[in-house]
């Protein structure tokens, strides 16, 4: 099976256009609900036959729903590694579902049913992980979409639900509501002013947790943090989202203040940092993934505080996705470990930035597709 992600509107990433609230600081808001089918063992313990049965039931339920009726079904256990990683890099599926965790193979029956904006991951750690991603900071609209899909699928598939513990999940850290909301946020101001440690520590005290770009266990690259609720039980969905929203608003405000201070107190330092980053991205002939992410962070900061207007946030979001290893490898039609990938990446980055610069200040969405 060959994967054609162009079948999905916006390649499955409608959040790239940075049209959502607080788009200068918050890239996306993702919410997921964990659900399991009653009477079937959880995926880590289930037999191949059970996993297949779950997949068939979910696909049938999705076809009967209003939201996923015409969705694309991607059978992940049929895909080669590069394509699984590609899906993961687009945040369409988790690392676990992509079978990228070290020492673990892709699970039988692993699938994603998606229309790009909303998706049902099948046979992740739980039978079902419903997920929605929105541009910018938008927890309430994201949850509203998800709630409808959850209700529709719940009438087709009997979910495992407990009178006391709520929705039952493979790992007790997800039980209850099964709800995890995470906000992908860019915090270079707090990193540069060295206030980030204090902020992250504060988050832990109020029941929030942070992760890197790729979710659980991943490192922070390019000053991008995923902030999410740590607990899922004992509070209602609304309370969990309200709490997260309140805290994230505060973090956004801190970041804004940090940026203002940087621009006021160290305009030369910050200007130099931003333009150097832009210069390197625009002219370098070989770029590693990590270097690209860090330089993109500098340019994003510059665009956010109005220092650079040659490049749009949309282009920066696109680069964030398309400069990742599997995307570059696929573009070059090479393997993931090919030594020429940094050169291919640099050429691609240069192309997109050139396009934006040619279009002039505050360019709209780029047409050169990835």
């Amino acid at each position, binding site marked *: 099976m060959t994967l054609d992600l162009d079948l999905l509107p916006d390649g499955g990433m409608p959040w790239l256009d940075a049209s959502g609230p607080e788009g200068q600081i918050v890239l996306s808001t993702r919410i997921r609900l964990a659900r399991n089918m009653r009477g079937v063992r959880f995926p880590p313990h289930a037999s191949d036959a059970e996993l297949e049965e779950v997949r068939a039931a979910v696909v049938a339920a999705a076809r009967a729903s209003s939201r996923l009726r015409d969705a694309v079904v991607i059978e992940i256990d049929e895909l080669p590694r590069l394509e699984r990683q590609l899906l993961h890099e687009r945040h369409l599926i988790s690392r676990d579902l992509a079978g990228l965790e070290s020492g673990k193979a892709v699970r039988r029956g692993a699938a994603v049913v998606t229309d790009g904006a909303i998706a049902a991951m099948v046979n992740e750690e739980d039978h079902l992980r419903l997920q929605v991603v929105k541009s910018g900071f938008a927890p309430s609209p994201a949850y509203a979409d998800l709630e409808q899909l959850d209700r529709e699928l719940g009438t087709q598939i009997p979910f495992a639900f*407990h009178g006391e*513990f709520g929705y039952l999940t493979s790992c007790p850290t997800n039980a209850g509501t099964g709800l995890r909301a995470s906000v992908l946020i860019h915090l270079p101001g707090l990193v540069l002013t060295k206030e980030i440690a204090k902020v992250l520590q504060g988050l832990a005290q109020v029941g929030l947790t942070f992760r890197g770009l790729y979710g659980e266990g991943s490192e922070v690259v390019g000053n991008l943090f995923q902030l999410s609720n740590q607990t899922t039980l004992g509070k209602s969905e609304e309370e969990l989202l309200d709490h997260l929203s309140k805290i994230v608003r505060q973090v956004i405000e801190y970041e804004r203040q940090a940026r203002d201070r940087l621009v006021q107190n160290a305009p030369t330092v910050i200007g130099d940092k931003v333009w150097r980053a832009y210069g390197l991205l625009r002219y370098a002939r070989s770029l590693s993934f990590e270097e690209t992410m860090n330089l993109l962070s500098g340019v994003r900061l510059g665009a956010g505080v109005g220092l650079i207007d040659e490049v749009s946030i949309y282009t920066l979001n696109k680069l964030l996705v398309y400069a990742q290893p599997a995307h570059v490898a696929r573009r070059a039609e090479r393997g993931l470990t090919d030594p020429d990938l940094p050169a291919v990446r640099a050429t691609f980055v240069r192309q997109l930035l050139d396009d934006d610069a040619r279009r002039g200040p505050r360019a709209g969405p780029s047409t050169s597709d990835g």
Partner: protein
Amino acid sequence: MQCQRCGERPAVIHLTTIVDNTHTEQHLCEACAVAQGIQTEATLAKFPIGNFLATLGSGTATAQPTTDAEQRCSACGATLQDFRDSGRLGCSVCYDAFGASLRMLLRRIHGSSRHVGEPYASPLGMDVPPEGEPAAEVAALREQLQRAVEAENFELAARLRDEIRSRE
């Protein structure tokens, strides 16, 4: 007050345990508390679930009998030991099979073991009761008991415990 284990650092954790009406108190510094497998809110964020699991059914700071580890889920055959090893439960029935241990674990992770979010009506119809539905009052009593223990109101805690036993 000094830590009663190392005698060096100040005691910041004061743990009260009641097992079969025997009331014991421990006063520990944070390091010794961690060394004894006791999780506190301060240490909560720093420790992954594996650390919680390590104390499950081992009797540390809990009233759980050690035989819990050998309990087996009647539906999938998983044991509490399996759960401690992998961090993943076998199936939804495990939540009832290991109810007592899980309730405690859920409280440690989430600060509560009671779902207050959206209810779910199974498409199978009302003739099938939700899994493990305990009388709602008993669940509420358990929460009250937990709060009473936390507030060190032992008289109330004992009354609540007897009340729960009589109803179960």
